[in-house]
């Protein structure tokens, strides 16, 4: 089988991988911010619940989490799920897992902000919301960008874990092709795909970091 033919077969899987990647980022970045607020909440109950959620998300394999999200509705509640639920389960599993990691990154950034910035904002009459969104958050983004880049690059490779719940993403397709063709070439192509994908991500993040270098 020609390399180009393998590539066209893999293309469908690539698109699914990219979908998982984009959906995860779009939803877990804002959700992570909310979770970090919960983690830093003065309300002890909220803080404890969020802390437990984060420790479970970080303390168990993502593969297992995906299986719980996919099989949970049937085994826990007896709900019959359609075949289309696979991809949704992947989206949900990835989003809640990455939100936990992003929450801790946000928290580290927010807590590293000097108290003087809050005090200056208070004296100038900013409300709490204004202080956060006008003064604190823009500076936090710059501080956490390197950690976020790390996480995003891990995400590109983690999308392959969706194959454990039979989502036909890049890696699942490559594996199927490899066994039907008894060839390693699909794996080589898959490896290339992840590498190039991450190269693009790294370049993009580097560009953003440079754009934020106008101060300090």
């Amino acid at each position: 089988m020609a390399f180009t033919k393998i590539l066209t077969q893999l293309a469908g899987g690539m698109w699914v991988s990219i979908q998982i990647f984009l959906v995860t980022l779009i939803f877990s970045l804002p959700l992570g911010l909310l979770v970090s607020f919960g983690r830093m909440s003065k309300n002890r109950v909220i803080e404890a619940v969020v802390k437990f959620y984060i420790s479970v998300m970080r303390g168990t394999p993502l593969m297992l989490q995906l299986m719980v999200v996919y099989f949970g509705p049937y085994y826990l509640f007896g709900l019959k799920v359609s075949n289309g639920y696979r991809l949704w389960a992947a989206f949900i599993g990835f989003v809640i897992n990455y939100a936990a990691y992003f929450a801790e990154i946000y928290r580290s950034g927010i807590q590293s902000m000097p108290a003087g910035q809050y005090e200056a904002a208070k004296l100038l009459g900013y409300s709490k919301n204004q202080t956060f969104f006008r003064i604190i958050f823009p500076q936090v983004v710059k501080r956490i960008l390197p950690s976020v880049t790390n996480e995003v690059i891990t995400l590109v490779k983690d999308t392959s874990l969706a194959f454990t719940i039979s989502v036909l993403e890049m890696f699942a397709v490559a594996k199927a092709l490899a066994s039907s063709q008894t060839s390693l070439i699909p794996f080589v192509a898959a490896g290339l795909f992840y590498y190039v994908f991450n190269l693009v991500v790294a370049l993009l993040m580097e560009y953003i970091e440079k754009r934020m270098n106008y101060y300090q």
Partner: protein
Amino acid sequence: MHVLEMNHVEKSFNEQKVLRDISLSVKEGEILSVIGPSGSGKSTLLRCATMLEEMDRGELFYLGDKAVWNGSDGASVYAKKEKLKEIQKNYGLVFQNFHLFPHMTVLNNIIDAPIHVQKRSKEGAVQEAMELLQKMGLADKADAYPCQLSGGQCQRVAIARALALNPKILFFDEPTSALDPELTGEVLKVIKSLADLHIAMVIVTHEMAFARDISDRVIFMAEGVIVEEGTPEEVFASNNVRTQNFLGRYGEIL
């Protein structure tokens, strides 16, 4: 009427009494300097006056409006949030370490609060900011970022930022302590030039000559109490042993 009035203020940090029964008042347009050794409670006094720190006991008024008073159990009671927000508009604070917003240009540092807090028009805010920068000798730095400025320039921007909100009283917390002697001079010059704006000023400082020249009144603090209070001439020529000890050789030079 007094712009600021503080009565019998007490403040402790973990059993350590930092302010013991401090009372002071500032008239409109008056310039008051607070001098004293490190650890005497000067900064804590400013932080209590600006409500960055909560006092344990005592009263605080701005233009006759009650911000803090003593409850029936003797501990301080603060007014409602909205009321405090209203009262807060009367004063500004210039920090020792400036605390400019590093992600904003000099101009945006100054106009951001007038536009987003006071809801003033952008044109008006920009025009006033440029006038302030002119006064500070920094008109050409409007588009620079704080990291591109010297410490003295940063402090002048911080002063402009505080003035842009038109406070009735401006507090300075050791405004030149983070600066070398040359930069100190340029900042003190700017503060002196504010005297004709008729804004009341309370200046915590270690610059004795400056305190003597600019002030209508000087307070000498030590160990959390006001040891002496009077005109610069009175305090600097004081016979009080504690005051003399602090002023030390400075008194002889005079």
